């Protein structure tokens, strides 16, 4: 197997393993499924175009995704994103016995999003990456920070998130 073929095979395996995780991180971060999908795909496009796996692949992917997101937000200030206000899924008329459950689920989701929104951006990203299974090293790489400070900051971010969510009764 040539180097290019080998890279291609490794890339495809990595894509299958990591795309859902990167999408989930971006979706949790932005609340926008379309945007999360676009950014996650583009991050993998950049990895493929790189032609070689970085030493810390997940950290590299996280950093690229965060940069793409930042760039998208910059341009979106000038753009009218009509679809941002579109609901992700329009489900028509659930049965009555599930209605309360659906409302609770929506409330819970809203509360979580509000609580996340109260965290500083770096803490929010750190928390989300941690809960995608990123190591300290990968988090540090993805967010451009010192590895040694990740643990302490994570504990603080967890505490702050917990405090914010407690006010929401969850």
């Amino acid at each position, binding site marked *: 197997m040539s180097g290019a073929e080998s890279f291609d095979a490794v890339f495809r395996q990595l894509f299958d393993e990591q795309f859902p995780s990167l999408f989930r991180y971006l*979706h949790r971060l932005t609340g926008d499924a379309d945007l999360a999908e676009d950014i996650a795909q583009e991050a993998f496009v950049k990895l493929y175009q790189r032609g070689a796996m970085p030493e810390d692949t997940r950290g590299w992917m996280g950093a690229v995704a965060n940069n793409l997101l930042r760039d*998208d937000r910059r*341009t979106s200030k*000038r753009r009218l994103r009509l679809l941002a206000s579109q609901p992700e899924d329009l489900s028509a008329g659930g049965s009555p016995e599930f209605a309360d459950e659906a409302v609770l689920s929506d409330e819970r989701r809203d509360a979580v999003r509000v609580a996340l929104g109260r965290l500083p951006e770096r803490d929010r990203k750190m928390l989300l990456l941690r809960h995608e299974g990123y190591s300290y090293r990968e988090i540090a790489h993805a967010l451009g920070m010192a590895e040694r400070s990740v643990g302490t900051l994570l504990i603080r971010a*967890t505490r702050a998130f917990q405090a914010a969510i407690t006010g929401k009764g969850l």
Partner: protein
Amino acid sequence: MNLDEKHHLLHIGTAEAAFVIHEPGLHARIEKRVNAHVAGCEKCSTLLRVHRAQDRKVAELLAALDIPAPATQANSVVARAIGELPTGAGVVSRGRRAAAALALISVAAVAAAALPASPLHRLIVRAFGTGTSGQPTTSARPGVARPQSAPPGVFLKPDSSLDIVFLGYDAGLVHVRIVDGTQASLTSADTGSKYRVSNDRILVEQSPRATFDLTLPRSLRVVHIWAGGELTLDRLHRSLIGDTGSFTIPLSRAGSTKPSH
């Protein structure tokens, strides 16, 4: 009491607790000390339990946000990466495209609105490859069928994405219809509008209050419509298209633009 024993007496710090909770098994020395300490320290044992519980609770709460990941295939990403861009792959760097198209519209709008005979205007016309002001306003790209009874407009087979740029700042409407096949068209009964077309772009100098009919192939997921200097539509989303396969976009300055079914 040796040094290790003395060390074990120290209460655990936040960083140590974090290592044990977040990366179990990776920091053996720290873990050993923490375990030795919490075995005899109720306060630190409780603290560690609280941190663990908080961590689990956060994981549970974050899961409430999740939706299933899209069924994106590695093939479509690889094709995009190597520049094949299969139709409907839906992988586009929106920031890069937006920046490029915005630059284009800034130049084009100034030229079109100001001096149609200026060198800048001619340059734009050349850049789009076909037509000049005053030429017939209907064109079809090679290999593209143009219905005989069709009103004036343009007919093309876009590669993988399509930018439609309305240069004017006047109100108007675009009725969008999603169709099967590979052909796109933009037509209007209004004969005063002028079009420039390339494989992935349509530039329109529209008459005031003109109404357009835009048909787009279902497989063309990435469509940018620019009106009044702003990006009005950036992709075809299932909730926008709806069951009818059609929707309408008002042409006006940004902020007053909303699609409707």
